[in-house]
């Protein structure tokens, strides 16, 4: 994870001013009317842990943190914020990688940590109804005695919350076959900024009116606060096997991915790692990866025994004909778990190679992979910053990890610029700036590259339909047109100079 960064303004300033202190005190006293003292945090040292999410280069200290534990309390918190025109940022576990849950220094941070109860697991209806602060993995654990599980499995699943997953429309290593969060959520309960409780979707397979369930997915806390989530549970597949193929040329690994899909097979998971990522991960997790290979592909097949047996042979044949230097099949469940554990710890593992790492999240049409990797390695040389690649290969979602040292003057700026270039490259080849981590504060400038002004204006109109005063997570996810105009002008005039310091809010 990236570290605090000295180039950015820290958020202490408002705390010192009498005005901020006054607002803090008056807000706190309003909240204390219905929240116990331990649920209203405003002492500076206790606010610190909340100043950042997983993108720790961006930090702000909020005026107040509130930790309600009933829906009614959330309604009252929002109603007060609305009345006093104070911005609010919702926070799940704070594992987000785009600064979506970064507080605002003139705002309230609404933590959902206390909403951590699983309300119902129904094995017949195959659903779980949970509070938003329940951890992703906890749902599958609770469903497991019934032979069921919740499919989307972000690598952060031991920590991240289902509310955060919905807000980011998170994916995981199994989403090629089983879909993203949006495909696995049936119903949401949401509190609007007016304090109103709404229900989107339901236990049936559709709902009357607009598909607001879909609109909420990936809306980054901009439209409302999710207070309950009902998810679909799937039967655990009868068997799952994992094949690991090594390649001495990453383009061959890319060809194998296309070949598997052309053969009519949709693997449960299809992940690629490049040489540097393999080396770091093996060093960290000792999971049995072939150090020295240019790339590995992890291909998981699941289903009935018959289905998996048949597909396994065909996948193996594709891997071999695409030039795999070795193909290994996990011998047992323990080895399968170990190989996945490596992949799921790839970020922190790679991060050990340097004081800091910066994780990018673009998606590209898969066939453009060799070209994108080539251009990234050129940029890596140009910026003198190493980059390791972890790739949800099946669906084209690339996670380049840029390694840097934030203590070196100017290095974060350089890293940020390199990252921005990578995202813009993704757009150029027909992809997107974010596959699953969200825009947050991080990619706000790149939104100007991906969208035209009229499209951004339409997004603002959608936001206004829910939150007319713009109090929910303001400044995130969708840039103002003015900001884009400035960013665009900069692009033209100093194409090769580091982006000047644009305040992000």
């Amino acid at each position, binding site marked *: 994870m990236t570290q605090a960064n000295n180039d950015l303004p820290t958020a202490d300033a408002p705390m010192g001013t009498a005005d901020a202190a006054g607002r803090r005190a008056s807000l706190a006293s309003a909240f204390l009317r219905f929240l116990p003292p331990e649920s209203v945090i405003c002492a500076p040292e206790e606010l610190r842990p909340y100043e950042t999410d997983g993108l720790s280069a961006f930090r702000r200290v909020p005026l107040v943190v509130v930790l309600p534990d009933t829906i009614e309390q959330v309604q009252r918190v929002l109603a007060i914020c609305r009345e006093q025109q104070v911005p609010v940022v919702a926070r799940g576990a704070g594992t987000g990688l785009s600064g979506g849950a970064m507080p605002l220094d003139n705002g309230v941070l609404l933590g959902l940590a206390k909403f951590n109860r699983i309300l119902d697991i129904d094995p017949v209806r195959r659903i779980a109804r949970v509070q938003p602060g329940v951890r992703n993995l906890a749902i599958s654990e609770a469903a497991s005695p019934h032979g069921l599980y919740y499919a989307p499995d972000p690598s952060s699943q031991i920590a991240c919350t289902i509310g955060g997953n919905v807000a980011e429309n998170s994916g995981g290593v199994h989403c090629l076959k089983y879909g993203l969060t949006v495909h696995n959520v049936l119903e949401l309960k949401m509190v609007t900024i007016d304090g109103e409780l709404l229900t989107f979707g339901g236990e049936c397979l559709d709902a009357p009116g607009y*598909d607001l369930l879909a*609109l909420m997915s990936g809306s980054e806390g901009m439209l409302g606060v999710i207070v309950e989530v009902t998810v679909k549970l799937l*039967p655990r597949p009868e068997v799952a096997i994992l094949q690991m193929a090594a390649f001495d040329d990453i383009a061959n690994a890319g060809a194998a991915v296309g070949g598997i899909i052309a053969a009519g097979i949709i693997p449960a998971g299809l992940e690629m790692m490049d040489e540097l990522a393999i080396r770091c991960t093996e060093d960290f997790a000792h999971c049995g990866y072939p150090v020295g290979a240019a790339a590995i592909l992890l291909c998981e097949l699941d289903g*009935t025994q018959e289905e998996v*047996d*048949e597909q396994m042979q065909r996948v193996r044949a594709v891997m071999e004909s695409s030039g795999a230097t070795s193909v290994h099949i996990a011998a047992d469940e323990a080895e399968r778990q170990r190989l996945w554990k490596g992949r799921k710890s790839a970020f922190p593992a790679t991060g050990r190679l340097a004081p800091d790492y910066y994780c990018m999240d673009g998606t590209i049409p898969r066939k453009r992979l060799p070209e994108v990797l080539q251009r990234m390695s050129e940029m890596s040389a140009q910026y003198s910053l190493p980059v390791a690649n972890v790739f949800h290969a099946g669906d084209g*979602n690339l996670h380049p990890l840029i390694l840097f040292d934030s203590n070196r003057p100017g290095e974060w700026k350089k890293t940020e610029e390199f990252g921005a270039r990578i995202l813009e490259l993704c757009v150029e080849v027909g*992809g997107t700036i974010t596959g699953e981590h969200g825009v947050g504060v991080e990619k706000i400038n790149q939104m100007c590259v991906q969208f035209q002004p009229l499209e951004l204006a339409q997004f603002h109109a959608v936001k206004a339909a829910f939150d007319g005063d713009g109090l929910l997570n303001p400044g995130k996810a969708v840039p103002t047109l003015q900001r884009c105009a400035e960013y665009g002008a900069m692009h033209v005039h100093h194409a090769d100079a580091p982006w000047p310091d644009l305040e992000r809010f």
Partner: protein
Amino acid sequence: MELRDISADLAQVVEQASAERQPLVVVGGGTKGFYGRRVDGTALSVSGHRGITNYEATELVLSARAGTPLVEIESALAEHGQMLPFEPPRFGPTATLGGALACGLSGPARPYRGAARDFVLGTRVLNGRGESLRFGGEVMKNVAGYDVSRLMVGALGTLGIVLEASLKVLPRPAAEITLVRDEDPDAALTTMNALGGKPYPLTASAYDGERLYLRFSGARAAVDAAAARVGGERLSDADDWWRSVRDHTHPFFTGDAPLWRLSLPATAPLAEREGIGFVEWGGAQRWLRGERAAEAMWHQAQTVGGHATLYRGGDRTAGVFQPLPEAMAAIHRRLKRAFDPHGICNAHRLYAEW
């Protein structure tokens, strides 16, 4: 294949209609005009805006203009052994992609493979001002900006006109078997729900009041094994049978009696008082025929956590979709205004008020 891009003309028509406050009724292939409320306005045909603009079988992505017939899309996919996983109902040979998405209808595979909205990756739309906007894209994962593309699905053209869409497509299964067996209503519902909770390659289920139909798809060996374990008689003309259910040419759906659709939690008990009707989607989609009081249908559906639609026939000048609670209706009104401030796109098709 005919390739034509008339988006500029369409944009101009909408822009002008917006300036003149002239309501438009958007028409694709004209096969689903029966669906939704009856509306008035100048017909705007998008069927001339057609053609597959991109199809990459190994990327699992197909993009096409809204007026492209589904038949054309599905035959292009079939050439590469692929399909539209949500099995959109056609209701006629001229059905277009745009109409399928605007209505947001999905076929028999819905509970097992997903709905129309699940496979939409991106769209180009004309909003009610005639502005041409692109959302999403041609990649599987994309969380930049609000998911306006999925919001368009099922909006019945009330938020704007879908000009082009990109869809995720999937390989066709190598083998398919449909089993039929006699079941009484409660047992049928129990069986459908129980099978849904097992790792069988079930891809469709239906119950006609007497017989339970179960479709399994996948690798040959897997399908055969499932069939052996589940048991039942093999249906020989299965593709035709499921198509008749999808497109409502099955005898249950023909004739003029009003057709009601109930979308319910799959385990909701069958209300025998109402007649069993026709059950699909593992119990989650149920059809009833005949004149029925709308208020009573809505009330009954809501009581078990579902909703009801007067799908075809009956009085289409009154409400046909389950009324929304006021707070939800307010959000809908504001969203409608956000996309179509002058209310010219398929006004009143979804709800009477707007």
